[in-house]
């Protein structure tokens, strides 16, 4: 049995419903604080952690950056960010550093591509599910909510599908962190870095990566990842969290 397309009149109505506005930040915070006692966590809620890329792309940050920097420098920063994100995730691939070794310099904005990183990685895999040496797949994974619109050839449909895949990978990483499964978290962030090196959740991905490294006891690579994060996301609202993980 196949699915008949949704008639246009219903599509318009349901499209309006789909656009329903998100809850505002204050209401979300209130809801979370009221819920925390029900979670059974002895120490109460954690310190609020800014999550600039969680709800949706941040026009506020973009505007702020545009006011502060010329467009040219922002474009350069984007290029650096793409390689930097891959570099931070590359740290998760790197072998443990000897205690006497300095942290690797990962901040240099060399335009390394994922395949280039793959060739330079002679490393044990943190998890076997996503090998960086494999070609980056371009198809939408089955874990993403495939939508009829995702099949449309237009750019909007592609962007929406990509965003859904990005969100799914970050959610996978976060849920793994909550479960204390840091290797799964690293596998998810690595997959994200392969497929979306400069994706809209790149900053969040790099933050999870360094925290997963620290939580798994790999302090050296966590420090290196934190240094790289500071270099490539100098305006990030997550920097206090980075400093807490790797002062």
């Amino acid at each position, binding site marked *: 049995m196949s699915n008949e397309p*949704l008639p246009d009149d219903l599509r318009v109505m349901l499209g309006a419903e789909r656009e329903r506005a998100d809850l505002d930040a204050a209401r979300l915070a209130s809801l979370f604080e009221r819920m925390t006692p029900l979670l059974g966590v002895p120490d109460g809620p954690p310190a609020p952690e800014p999550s600039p890329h969680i709800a949706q792309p941040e026009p506020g940050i973009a505007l702020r950056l545009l006011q502060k920097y010329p467009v040219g420098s922002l474009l350069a920063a984007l290029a650096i960010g793409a390689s930097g994100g891959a570099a931070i995730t590359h740290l998760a691939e790197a072998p443990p550093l000897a205690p006497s070794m300095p942290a690797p310099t990962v901040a240099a904005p060399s335009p390394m591509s994922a395949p280039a990183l793959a060739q330079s990685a002679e490393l044990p895999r943190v998890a076997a599910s996503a090998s960086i040496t494999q070609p980056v797949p371009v198809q939408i994974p089955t874990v993403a909510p495939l939508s009829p619109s995702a099949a449309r050839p237009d750019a909007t449909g592609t962007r929406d599908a990509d965003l859904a895949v990005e969100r799914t990978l970050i959610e996978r990483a976060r849920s793994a962190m909550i479960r204390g499964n840091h290797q799964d978290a690293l596998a998810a962030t690595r997959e994200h870095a392969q497929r979306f090196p400069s994706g809209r959740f790149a900053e969040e991905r790099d933050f999870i990566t360094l925290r997963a490294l620290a939580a798994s006891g790999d302090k050296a690579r966590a420090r290196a990842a934190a240094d790289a994060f500071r270099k490539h996301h100098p305006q990030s609202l997550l920097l206090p969290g980075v400093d807490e993980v790797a002062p």
Partner: protein
Amino acid sequence: MMARAGSEAATATAVAAEPTRAPVPKASLADFRALFEQNASYVHHSLRRLGVRAEDLDDATQEVFVVLFRRLADYDPSRPLRLWLFGVALRVASQARRRTRPVECLDDHAVADAAPLADEGLERGEMRDRVLLALDALDVDRKAVFVMHDIDEFPVPAIAAQLEIPVNTAYSRLRLAREDFRRALLRLGKGSAP
């Protein structure tokens, strides 16, 4: 205030029945908070679409996330989190409806209040209101498939897997739900071509 207190007590009772698990590290709570912030609006809207009253939405949303927190180990990360959350929301909405009076929808009073509007004149906000009213008229099982597919745009096979029903059943429910939804809209005065 009484209703709020009663509802919170119901939420606490419902979540207390969930199996407990070891407390998670504080750092993981930050991740949980991020998941909450990213998905709370989706859950909130889904619950409303599933017929939870506006005044109960906050408590029901919290209930869904408490279940998520306690059962995250059961979550299969190869499947979309929102699909899983919708499954939880479906159960929470069912409990919420049982705790409260039946939803008044599409009765004579509601239809009388919904003045017919020309298609071109219907604002987006009004469309949303009518969609919710029309959804309230649907059978719950059909509505679940309809919302998951035609609003949330999940593929039917994934929906069938989440609801643990045959794929053909899911397609059948979707087709019937669309017919019911169209009829409901017509009763509300939003003329769709027959």
